[in-house]
């Protein structure tokens, strides 16, 4: 009963009655961009887990309540929290997951993302790969909490971030 009591206190009874965060139908995004900058320069930027607001235009600010956890404030929206799963400086890969969702801020109930860098002739290829679940994992989601809405939000977040990072790093040359 304590669980329900805390939900009521938090005012979350106003949210639609959702199934648990991890529904049965994952979606994927697979976005790539080539940045004309050395691998190390790109890695230095993206691997700084607490510094995403420095290059991602949709992130207003970041707080790090503890090691490996970051609270993103999305511009004009609110907060979601991510936690770091893996950081591999040799392979230039990192992965993290959504730790605390708020579907009114970002219409995805759970995601895991991996970012991978690879040296290519033109500089560095950056990949942003995500596996995620729509906001309402029941069988009758409203449109704004549907698979389509989740895919749009995830790919927009990835591509906006990568384009901005590209501009920033290529401008520095």
């Amino acid at each position, binding site marked *: 009963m304590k669980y329900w009591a805390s939900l009521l206190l938090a005012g979350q009874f106003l949210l639609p009655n959702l199934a*648990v965060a991890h529904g049965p139908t*994952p979606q994927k995004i697979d976005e790539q961009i080539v940045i004309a900058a050395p691998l190390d320069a790109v890695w230095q930027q993206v691997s700084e887990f607490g510094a995403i607001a420095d290059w991602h235009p949709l992130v207003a600010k970041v707080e790090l309540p503890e090691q490996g956890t970051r609270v993103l404030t999305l511009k004009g929206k609110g907060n979601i929290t991510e936690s770091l799963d893996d950081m591999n400086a040799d392979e230039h890969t990192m*992965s993290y997951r959504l730790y605390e969702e708020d579907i009114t801020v970002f219409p995805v109930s759970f995601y*895991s993302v991996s970012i991978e860098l690879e040296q290519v002739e033109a500089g560095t290829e950056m990949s942003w*790969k995500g*596996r995620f679940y729509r906001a309402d994992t029941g069988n009758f989601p409203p449109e704004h909490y549907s698979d389509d809405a989740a895919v749009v939000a995830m790919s927009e977040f990835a591509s906006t971030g990568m384009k901005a990072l590209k501009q920033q790093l290529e401008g520095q040359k």
Partner: protein
Amino acid sequence: MQLKPLYFCLLPLFVPGAVVAERAFLTHQAVDSVSVVDLQTSERIAEIGVAAAPVGVAIDSAGKRFYVTHPEKGLISVIDSESYTKIGEIRTGGQPFGIAVDHSGKRQVFVADWERNALLVVNPESMLVVDVLAVGENPAGLAVDDKRRRIYIANRESHTLTVLDADTPDQYADVKTAKAPYAVTVSEDGRQIFVAAIEDNSLTVIDGEDYSVTATLKCGDKPYSVATTPDNKYVLVANQGSNDLWVFDLNTLEKLAEITVGEMPESVDVSADGRFAYVTNWFSNDLSVIALDSLKEIQRLSVAESPRSLGRFIAD
């Protein structure tokens, strides 16, 4: 997570001494289809359009049919495994997810209903749900021990394994596992049950007699699937976050190998002769073939979009 060069694919497939042509039955949730791969020729021999978002699969070799769950639609497709045509549909409601066939000869199919926290018992002849049994929260994978007449169900959100009788509505145990148990398998001799706990990155090992937890084995990142070999030699765990298959000795529980597979592996199963393991790679759209004598990936076959195949997906 870096893509490795797929030089395996350039080698011609040579499987010495393989007698039975087994097949892989793959669910492609993103494109509403099921495909069948002949594992001797590596050819895709069928691609079948089905209802939306198929996930779980179970094969009834004796009955020459297989079942595919559609959690988004509250139904199960029944497909002829020779002609690859649809035989019928089982309407379950809820969100049918993991599925398993009773191979004892008794005509029963067991289905985990993710949304309604239940195990559904289906009569495959009448295609009707004949029993609904309460289990833990958000049941995902399940395993049936045909000989010892037990059903094991992994309840992802209540962090437990429910043990039910396969013939009566009796429940024997509700075992606390590590966090977020998703897949479960039972060794061929019935003596050990292995449960993959996604959020704890571990395998909970449970005694098949008294249902006590006997060990917790560290796995890779997000272990999504577990299988054992029919010779009681190996336990195999597919780790979705670390893109690998970990191999344990089933008796000593010692880790023997970490084998890199494709991206975001989803499900692992083993050939009937215990010589090969197969892993569906959900993100990279391929099927890894692992030789269990050398514990090496010998091939990676391209398949249709987003293969999942929750359940036992290899059969002759």
